């Protein structure tokens, strides 16, 4: 018998399950990438994986370390230049789902991956925007995969790198965005979804053995909780085994 699922594994599997019906998913490095590769392996063999390096329809057997590993180019249906990727594929909203990470998220699903502290004299300089602002604006929907804690779930972002729902429910429409924005935030504790009216992130599903209180405790704002909170189905043996078989080369 294999070891029980860690919180991180539950998070990855819960994210992967969201891709059962998707046609195409845009992914970066790390846990979002693992989740999408797992989804293609387990639930959705036709799922088209798209990396900002230009690989469309990559079929990695392992989780690549970078978004530009050779295996991605070698197994892709098509490989395009970076300007084409952003102009012809991402910008026009051709991709169903984007999986994104971030260092900070706020209650409206806005993301920070730029700096902790003031921009001109940052305490921590983070990598920066990458493709996230336009990906989040244009893809059909966004799933944020992020660890849950008071450092990441903050009342106020130090920097708004990427717009989730902005400051108000109609901000995306006002900004002319094509996509629906964040439809789920998957953490190592739970799943949050935007309230249909206010677009505020709302706890809708708890991972096994996690309490509402634990999620509140790890959230830097006063958390909204759905009237009925679902419970994430515990990872199946097959899911865990597949996930563990994908470890990065």
């Amino acid at each position, binding site marked *: 018998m294999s070891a029980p699922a860690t919180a991180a594994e539950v998070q990855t599997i819960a994210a992967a399950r969201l891709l059962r019906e998707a046609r195409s998913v845009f992914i970066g490095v790390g846990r979002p990438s693992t989740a999408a590769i797992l989804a293609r392996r387990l639930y959705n063999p036709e799922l088209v994986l798209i990396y900002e390096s230009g690989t469309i329809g990559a079929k990695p057997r392992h989780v690549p370390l970078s978004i530009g590993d050779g295996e991605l180019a070698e197994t892709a249906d098509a490989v395009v230049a970076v300007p084409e990727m952003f102009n012809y594929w991402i910008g026009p909203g051709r991709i169903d789902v984007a999986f994104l990470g971030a260092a900070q998220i706020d209650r409206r699903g806005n993301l920070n991956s730029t700096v902790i502290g003031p921009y001109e004299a940052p305490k921590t300089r*983070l990598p920066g925007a990458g493709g996230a602002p336009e990906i989040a604006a244009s893809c059909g929907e966004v799933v944020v995969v992020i660890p849950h804690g008071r450092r990441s779930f903050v009342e106020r972002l130090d920097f708004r790198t990427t717009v989730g729902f902005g400051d108000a429910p109609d901000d995306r429409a006002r900004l002319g965005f094509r996509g629906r924005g964040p439809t789920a935030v998957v953490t190592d504790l739970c799943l949050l979804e935007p309230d249909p009216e206010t677009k505020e992130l709302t706890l809708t599903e708890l991972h096994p053995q996690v309490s509402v209180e634990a999620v509140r405790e790890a959230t830097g704002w006063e958390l909204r909780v759905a009237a009925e909170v679902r419970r994430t189905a515990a990872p199946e043996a097959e899911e865990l085994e597949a996930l563990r078989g994908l470890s990065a080369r």
Partner: protein
Amino acid sequence: MSAPKSLSEAIADLVRDGDTVALEGFTHLIPFAAGHELIRQRRRDLTLVRMTPDLLYDQMIGMGCARRLVFSYGGNPGVGSLHRFRDAIENGWPHPIEVEEHSHAGMANRFAAAASGLPFAVLRGYRGTDLMRHTRVATIECPFTGEELTAVPALDLDVAVVHAQEADRDGNVQLWGIPGVQKEAVLGARRSLVTVERLVDRLEPRPGGVIIPGWVLDAVAVAPSGAHPSYSLGITERDNDFYKAWDAIARDRDAFLAWMEEHVIAGGGDR
């Protein structure tokens, strides 16, 4: 384009202190050998332009080549931080650097505008973000629909350096695999250098091959394994272990300097 040159000669000819330089390659084909030669030749006050600074600019920043950095994603992909990049921005070591940052979509379009000889490009992007207030973009109105979009200024590049798999003896270049923004960088810069894994008598067109005619290049130099620890698809493999090991090397200033001294400075031109 004349015949291939040595890398040291090509760098000496083409890159001057204070230049705006793009060493491009999106994860794939990053021109490390050329960057190391710039470090050895002690170029200073460069404006370093790259979508993804990666380990190469971490090294160049840490060795004091950069006055300014223009970029869109400054991480060690899949590993974590670029510690020399952070140390320069957070602590001004070895000296402070200026930063101009964009999104990938913005940078890609800035390269494309430069390659097109246009002063700007238009995209849907940046809107609603704090980036808009901290970088060089502008709002522009569609003259047909009235919709507001974002304009980004073309990059103004003195020199582009890219790495490719092969060149023929006339300096025509072919690269394949992830093409990134290399063609745009070369066509968008006043001067350009391509380092290649090997010379061939005749370029045999490949699936996914991008061919850059020699007559738009200023120099070609042979640099086998010149993308390491990045890679040249079909010839070398990405050294993911090195990318992981770099985290510990770069985290400490002394460890970094010792590594650079041993592997880049003393290592000479023949890595």
